[in-house]
């Protein structure tokens, strides 16, 4: 990779030499292992997160194609499926076990490995030091560990696919007793043990990363970079890290109790259970609902862990490419803060139909719908940012606009589902699938794509191919709506989630053609993602070279580094910051970089 050639010229600090022993003025020797494998450079770690996330996105996407095949063509047989999956697709039709395993793994992998590790792992690592003006993370070593714990989690999860009794198949939320009892479902045997080990490793990875991100944002900002001069990306990534650090341990505690119930005969979640073929279990006095509280105490903040980084990047990209300051910078921070606080206070809206105390439920209704207010502020501010701008449709900008559209569409259905009396009807139907795929899944993917297209020149010193980017965007946007919009109608017919086959149901069997259509579009959209992957890897090596330091005309600090920054990011002194990140179109100037001192004749200063 020639883009890494410009490394450590003058004054680069080798932060990983330890003991504060800084090396100046000479080229720091790096081997293949220290540079590409056990790297402590935040930029390399970001790329590791990104590419591992991409591998998982392909696997997770492929799983969805496979189970969509079953939903779209429930009666057809595909002999090649048996060639690939063996006993899991006897006679060319995916078995129930395999279907549920695919659904479960798709969910787990996309939520945690792609949209948590792949999204905030990539962009928190890449952008925080570059945009706050730091040479690296607070602890590069911990940062490296964070990636390798994620890698270990990935390996364990991948291995669970090859267990004889199959991977875990009880849904990504892993509710006990189903997830606690191997006798209730074969997927809850060894597959579940591995799922838990993998997730435990993932929590460790996430905590190591999160602590680092927080420490870096708080302590390592360059001179003049006050908190209110930070780009919104950093604010969003900061809140994301706070959410993760405060909520992942709770999930972990839930998993520990589950491990005890599974293996050591405790009854935290188990009570009054009789399993066919086994008989009555000795466990009494536990509460299956306790797990749901512990799970959703992470589970809901997790939604914002996925969404906030996308929001931050979209804010930045919309502003840069509208050539106009983000509208309501302080309101944007305020709404991020409000969302982060509320994220901890709404978890039980996933549990309206568990028999929750109705009064408690009503509090959660109120707090849940309250989230719509900061969300509305963000949407209106994005729209106003576009208003009277001078918009450049780079692929990154297109994805940012697509994000806003999807966030509106999916966010509005949240108002339906957050209202408990309506949720009683729509809970666990396809309406929910449509809601969270649009607002959290696809929208965050769009945020991620926007980030990749926008910062690819900084990552690799090359451009992605624009034409392929445009095709990627328009097909994906149209496809996302074609897949998930009609699902609202299936939900309004009451069609339940996680059904392998609907043909025996008088109430739900009328959507055969629609399901086939959705499956077909899903395959096309998946193919277009492969086009993007090709564009990505091709462009790393053969892409058009970046020739100017600041290709998008942006104000932020990352564009003051060399085209291919080495470990340490800046050659010589770290630049000083004199203004906020959004002086676009001010006083008739195209843009004013954060490093430019405030002129005497400048109008109102931020």
């Amino acid at each position, binding site marked *: 990779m020639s883009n890494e050639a410009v490394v450590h010229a003058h004054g680069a600090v080798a932060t990983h030499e330890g003991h504060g022993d800084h090396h100046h003025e000479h080229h720091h020797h790096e081997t293949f292992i220290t540079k590409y494998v056990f790297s402590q450079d935040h930029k390399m770690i970001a790329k590791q997160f990104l590419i591992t996330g991409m591998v998982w996105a392909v696997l997770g996407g492929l799983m969805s194609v496979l189970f969509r095949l079953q939903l779209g063509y429930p009666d057809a047989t595909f002999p090649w499926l048996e060639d690939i999956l063996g006993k899991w697709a006897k006679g060319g039709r995916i078995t129930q076990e395999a279907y549920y395993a695919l659904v479960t793994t798709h969910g787990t992998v996309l939520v945690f490995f792609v949209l948590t590790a792949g999204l905030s792992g990539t962009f928190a690592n890449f952008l925080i030091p570059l945009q706050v003006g730091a040479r690296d993370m607070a602890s590069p070593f911990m940062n490296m560990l964070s990636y390798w714990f994620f890698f270990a989690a990935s390996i364990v999860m991948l291995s669970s696919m090859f267990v004889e009794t199959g991977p875990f198949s009880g849904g990504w939320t892993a509710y006990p007793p189903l997830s606690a009892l191997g006798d*209730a479902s074969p997927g809850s045997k060894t597959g579940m043990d591995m799922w838990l080990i993998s997730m435990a490793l993932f929590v460790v990875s996430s905590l190591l990363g999160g602590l680092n991100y927080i420490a870096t944002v708080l302590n390592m900002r360059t001179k003049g970079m006050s908190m209110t001069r930070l780009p919104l990306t950093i604010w969003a990534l900061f809140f994301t890290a706070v959410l993760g650090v405060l909520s992942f341990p709770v999930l972990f505690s839930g998993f520990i109790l589950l491990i005890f119930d599974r293996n050591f005969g405790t009854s935290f979640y188990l*009570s009054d259970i009789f399993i066919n073929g086994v008989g009555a279990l000795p466990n009494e006095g536990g509460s299956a609902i306790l797990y749901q509280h512990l799970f959703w105490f992470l589970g809901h903040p997790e939604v914002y862990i996925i969404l906030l980084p996308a929001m931050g990047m979209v804010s930045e990209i919309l502003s840069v490419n509208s050539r106009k300051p983000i509208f309501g910078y302080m309101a944007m921070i305020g709404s991020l803060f409000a969302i982060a606080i509320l994220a901890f206070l709404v978890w039980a809206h996933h549990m309206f139909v568990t028999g929750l105390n109705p009064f408690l439920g009503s509090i959660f209704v109120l707090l849940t719908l309250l989230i*719509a207010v900061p969300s509305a502020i963000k949407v209106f501010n994005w729209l106003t940012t576009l*208003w009277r701008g001078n918009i450049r449709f780079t692929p990154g900008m297109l994805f940012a606009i697509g994000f806003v559209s999807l966030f509106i569409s999916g966010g509005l259905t949240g108002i339906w589902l957050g209202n408990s*009396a309506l949720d*009683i009807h729509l809970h666990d139907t396809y309406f929910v699938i449509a809601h969270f795929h649009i607002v959290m899944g696809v929208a965050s993917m769009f945020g991620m794509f926007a980030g990749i297209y926008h910062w690819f020149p900084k990552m690799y010193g090359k451009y992605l*191919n624009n034409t392929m980017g445009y095709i990627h965007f328009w097909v994906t946007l149209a496809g996302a709506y074609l897949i998930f919009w009609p699902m609202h109608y299936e939900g309004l017919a009451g069609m339940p*989630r*996680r059904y392998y086959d609907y043909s025996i149901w008088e109430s739900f069997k009328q959507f055969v053609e629609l399901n086939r259509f959705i499956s077909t579009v899903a395959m096309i959209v998946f193919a277009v993602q492969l*086009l993007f992957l090709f564009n990505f890897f091709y462009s790393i090596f053969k892409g058009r070279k970046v020739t100017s330091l600041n290709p998008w005309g942006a104000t932020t600090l990352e564009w003051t580094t060399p085209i291919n920054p080495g470990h340490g990011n800046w050659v010589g002194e770290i630049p000083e910051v004199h203004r906020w990140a959004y002086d676009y179109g001010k006083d008739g100037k195209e843009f004013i970089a954060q490093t430019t001192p405030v002129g005497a004749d400048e109008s109102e200063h931020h």
Partner: protein
Amino acid sequence: MTMFLTIAVIVLIFVVIFQIAKASEYVSVLKGEEVSRKQNNKINGFLMIGFLVLGLFGVWYCNELYYGKTLLVHDAASVEGARVDSMLWVTLAVTGIVFILTQIVLFWFAYKYQESENRKVFFFPHNNKLEVIWTVIPAIALTVLVVIGLRNWFLFTGEPPQNAMVVEVTGKQFGWIYRYPGKDGSFGKKYYKNIDNASNSLGLIWDDKLGHDDVVMEQTMYLVKGKPVKLIIGSRDVIHDVGLVHFRMKMDAVPGIPTTMWFTPKYTTKEMKEITGNPNFQYEISCDQMCGNGHYSMKGVIEVVDQEEFDAWMVKQKPYYVQQFPEKDPAAPKAVADTAAKTASVKPVEAAKKAVAKM
């Protein structure tokens, strides 16, 4: 063979796209990057407005195609469900208007303010008045929705009317068991360690006389039109969920923690067959909580009938206790009791006694 052909076609499409993409990059170098960037900008700006128009058309067309297949074309089958529907329509109106307006503004702005050499960007970093407006208006709209929602919520989760009948529903992998309290109106106690698939599917404690007239059955639950019903919901193994789409109700079945739900059926099954125009219509109970590999087939049926029909049906039902201990049937002569049933029944009785002692 078709698979290879499909793969070949996909690869071919990829190659074509790649060649076009590559070529357009060369062209842009030849034309000057600035010129081709502006061209692309125009194209994408046009596509923005195109997407808006096609998208709105698509929303309408999708509604044309699928509205008729949803539950909304017919009345909700319960009195409470009608309130869910009316709340749904209000929510749809509010969110629908916001959806249409914001999407139009988004794509229209994207089109209108695409890069142009003549435009001077408006430096507009903030405006407190605007920001207050779009904080307050959503807050008011949401307050209205919350008030409507919570009134319904407290009604649905509150106590059912005095005249409500009670039915117990128990989920198991993968089916439902129903229990009626019988003439005395009270359920007998049960204990899960007494469960025996063949002779005591709910684990009833036979020593409890209240349970002797309880009626237990699977497959079909009978309810009465116009009479509120309270379901006491439980599970024998993992978490299930009693999903009643036509009544617009849903409640989890959790092992160890009984839950409740109540509603008032509005139409008999027969009437619903006419209303929906579907002679095969059934009130189905769908399990809505992932419960294992047979989750998708965990189906129950509710038959709503009028009071007379229900009474006639109920009279015919033998209490579960009597089914298991025919010799104890007050209606039957003592001699009928055969010895085989007697010996088979000894074990569960003793187990139940032990269980009671433990409690």
